[in-house]
């Protein structure tokens, strides 16, 4: 009987914490449609299909504009998501690509193609939930070809 009581109390405390953290909703990573001149689409000439791929598979974590799904409003999912976005933007931010030096841009492009070829990006934990962000073989080839073209021009 006592054990049941313990269980009940722990359950209630857990539930209370879960309700409380719902109130923690930090500022969202959204630019309200403002594309700055530093955005990669303004700096480089990107084919439409590649743009589309970047938009659906990369920008959520690698730009200043995340397309938040409905469940992002539920904690603790949100905390995890913000962490991924912060880290993603630190390593590569397509919204501020133009602020990188030429050398850094070059290396970033090179890293993009390598990460994609190695299936390291997009993260598996991300594609597991965002099914449509998973890159098909032809998507990968298109990105790699685009990167190669860009690097040849430099």
């Amino acid at each position, binding site marked *: 009987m006592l054990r049941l*009581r*313990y269980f009940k*109390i722990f359950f209630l*405390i857990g539930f209370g914490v879960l309700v409380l953290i719902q109130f923690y909703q930090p500022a969202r990573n959204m630019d309200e449609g403002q594309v700055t001149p530093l955005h990669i689409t303004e700096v480089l000439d990107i084919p439409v299909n590649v743009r589309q791929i970047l938009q659906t598979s990369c920008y959520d974590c690698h730009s200043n504009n995340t397309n938040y799904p409905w469940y992002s409003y539920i904690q603790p999912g949100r905390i995890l998501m913000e962490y991924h976005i912060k880290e993603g933007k630190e390593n590569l931010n397509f919204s501020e690509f133009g602020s*990188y*030096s*030429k*050398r*850094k841009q070059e*290396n970033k492009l*090179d890293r993009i193609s*390598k990460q994609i070829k190695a299936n390291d990006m997009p993260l598996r934990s991300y594609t597991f939930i965002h099914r449509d962000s998973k890159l098909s073989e032809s998507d990968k080839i298109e990105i790699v070809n685009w990167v190669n073209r860009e690097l040849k021009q430099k």
Partner: protein
Amino acid sequence: MNKILFITLIISLGACQSKETKEAESNEQHHDASATNSETMDVKAETKAGNTQEDAMDNLITEYLNLKNALTADNAKDAARFGEKVVSEISEFDVDSFTSEQKKIYDEVMDDALEQAEHIADNANNIAHQREHFAMLSRDVDDLLGVFGTSKVLYQDFCPMYEDGKGAVWISEYKEIKNPYLGTKMLTCGSIKKEL
């Protein structure tokens, strides 16, 4: 019931307390760090009168070579440690006294070099990843040497096998080849491209 409430209270208090002490500790560390920082600043200020750019470059090269030697020995942990030192040496350059040519290279290469070194520092358990970034860092360091010069005798070496035949350069203080990309597996693979 009361007992349980009491226990949870104790636990949460304990958690708070340990957090506080941690903060206090990190504050202290912070303090220490800033103290040593001002010391190194003083040293820098003294050397400023001399040839600062070359000194800064020499210090950067020293840590770069340490990093390179760690990779040569397949030691990812040391590589990460020296990667961090490369990061701190990069920020020691006195940007205000640059000539326009130096400024140009610095702007072009430094934020890249900084990032490569950071990645090396952050990947103490992934030497393949460290080497990828080391290839990019080496190219940056090579360009910096061209503009800032050094008092050391150095060699620019080339590993033709790295990255499926794309190849990569590295800077070395040794005349004999000790390859940081292939490590102990193929230590003597590569060639000297030029003496710096």
